[in-house]
């Protein structure tokens, strides 16, 4: 483990930024933190988390897949990708770090999504242990320890210092570059910090939320639950929950005719939208209840069933604070899961 003083942070950032673009949460003009490219003078935000999750570093909201040029009856296919550059994402929280594992199991299984894979290869994730979890946090529900964040490098922040620990080869390399700016240290301060975080975690209002009722093999148990009607009753079918979610990964592929060629791009999509499953021949999910159910069943049952029990929710709490009608996965878990115990 290595440490540096908080005062030297800008020098550390400059060192990281020297060979790879550095992105970190920065307070925007509305006081909300946004991942921003670091440059001299940019200050790391003290906010717990960003409104938009860091998934967009690897799975951007919109990216070009392929371009076509057509002439008469012939088509030319062009791969628009250029070599990705190395980048470092600093300040990722434990929940979001876990979300990359959830996304990896979708994009990196055969056949590998090369667009995502390339960014994963070029990106280094530096996580920071939480210090001030808030009422909407429930990462513990999914076995995530905010005091022990994953990622290539984990960082703990105390009042005056930052403690760095590498977890992977990529992380090792990054720390080597910072060798002059950091010094070797023991992990006592970190252990104390972890204890402090854990004592806060147990006081959180959602500390007792359990996901045990869900998981593989529960499809039929919950699919026809009458509670879905009530839960989805006032859903306005927007995509806020999906778009702020760090693990939602559905996308759409569309063509855009630029007038001098066709760009085929992909962009985030939401199962909450009515035309998500609409085909020329019909629509398997006719009402908002079915779409609403799909989202939560996917996170709590379908995904774990396919991925060895791993839930596709990391308890980051973004949907809790952002849903226009305050309907969210916690309410769903309590209502649907709670009824199942009876």
């Amino acid at each position: 483990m290595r440490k540096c003083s908080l005062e030297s942070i800008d020098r550390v950032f400059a060192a990281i930024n020297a060979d790879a673009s550095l992105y970190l949460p920065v307070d925007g003009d509305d006081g909300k933190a946004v991942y921003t490219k670091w440059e001299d003078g940019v200050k790391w935000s003290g906010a717990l988390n960003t409104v938009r999750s860091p998934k967009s570093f690897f799975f951007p909201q919109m990216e070009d897949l392929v371009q076509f040029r057509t002439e008469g009856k012939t088509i030319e296919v062009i791969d628009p990708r250029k070599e990705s550059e190395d980048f470092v994402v600093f300040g990722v929280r434990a929940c979001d770090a876990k979300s990359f594992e959830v996304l990896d199991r979708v994009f990196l299984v055969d056949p590998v999504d090369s667009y995502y894979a390339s960014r994963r290869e070029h990106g280094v994730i530096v996580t920071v242990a939480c210090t001030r979890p808030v009422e909407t946090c429930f990462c513990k529900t999914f076995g995530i320890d905010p005091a022990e964040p994953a990622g290539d490098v984990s960082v703990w922040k105390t009042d005056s210092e930052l403690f760095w620990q590498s977890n992977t080869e990529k992380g090792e390399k990054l720390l080597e570059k910072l060798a002059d700016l950091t010094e070797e240290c023991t992990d006592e301060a970190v252990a104390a910090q972890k204890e402090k975080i854990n004592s806060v975690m147990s006081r959180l209002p959602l500390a007792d939320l359990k996901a045990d009722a869900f998981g593989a093999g529960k499809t039929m148990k919950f699919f026809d639950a009458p509670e879905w009607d009530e839960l989805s009753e006032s859903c306005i079918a927007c995509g806020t929950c999906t778009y702020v979610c760090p693990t939602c990964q559905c996308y759409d592929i569309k063509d855009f005719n630029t007038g001098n060629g066709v760009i085929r791009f992909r962009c985030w999509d939401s199962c909450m939208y009515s035309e998500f499953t609409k085909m020329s021949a019909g629509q398997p999910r006719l009402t908002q209840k079915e779409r609403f159910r799909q989202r939560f069943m996917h996170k709590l049952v379908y995904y774990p069933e396919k991925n060895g029990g791993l839930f596709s929710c990391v308890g980051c709490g973004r949907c809790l604070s952002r849903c226009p009608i305050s309907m969210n996965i916690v309410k769903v878990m309590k209502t649907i899961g709670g009824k199942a115990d009876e």
Partner: protein
Amino acid sequence: MQKITRDQLIEKAASLLGNGTVSCVLGWEKGEFDYDVTPALFETESELREKFVFGDFCGANLSKYLVSKTRKCEGRILVFLKPCDTYSFNQLLTEHRFDREKAYVVGIPCEGMADIERVKELCGDGISSVTADGDELVVTTLYDDEPVRVKAESVLAERCVNCKSKKHVAYDELIGEDGEVLSSARFDEVARLEAMTPDERFAFWQNELSKCIRCNACRNVCPACTCERCVFDNPSSGVENKAAANSFEEKMFHIIRAFHVAGRCTDCGECSRVCPQNIPLHLLNRKFIKDIDDFYGEYQAGAEVGSRAPLVNYTFDDLEPGEVFERGGQDA
């Protein structure tokens, strides 16, 4: 702090359910925390007593739900409407979006709704409870031993700070006293933007609109956006894009959306309330309202049922678009 209480509303709803006037109640349901309130339909008195809530965080405008719920429910629906919500209600009626006979409006006075983001700014995050006490909110957080007290008026949502009317323009029954149309400062911010140079305005909007994630929350919550199928959802429109590819598409979505509700927008402010990225979308709608007032005479959408909206109306001597710019403001 609201002047009426949850219990008053439950009593009213229970008696109307009991005597068969209405078959269900459209109201607000309490959530996980004191501030995350969900619009909900209640069918029985016990449901009301268990889950119904009314307080400083019941900002959600329930009028749009009448479009779908009146089709779904047998019998009349009791809906609690705050003064600003009644404008949306009238506007929906003007556009024949539901059957007036199927709604039973109980007008409720509103002292302005709190914005949880403002509470967090003043009291810090990690909020474990928020309760009203007189004209103050008592806020406890995970990190402070002592509760923090803030003036309710200091955490009002922007739309409530600039409240346009405390008068109910539609109701079957009123709880408490009706208020007056207010002379608000709601156009001040628009005027401030108008006074900027075009470069400043461009920079302002470029920055704001670039935050847009195209979640469609503003559109879907908007009581004026009730098209069965939106142009932005129609694959053959060529603009059915789920993500804004660049700043052009960000602008197009918001200009077109604001234009489509121009003259019909009652300025209820729901778009700005729900925006996960805190984009001040009401400033687009208010620009249209201000322009309409300036160009064609004062018009408040929803003030009365059946009024002819300015964009489906004209006079022979309307202003020419070229003359608009002669009236002032700055150009490059």
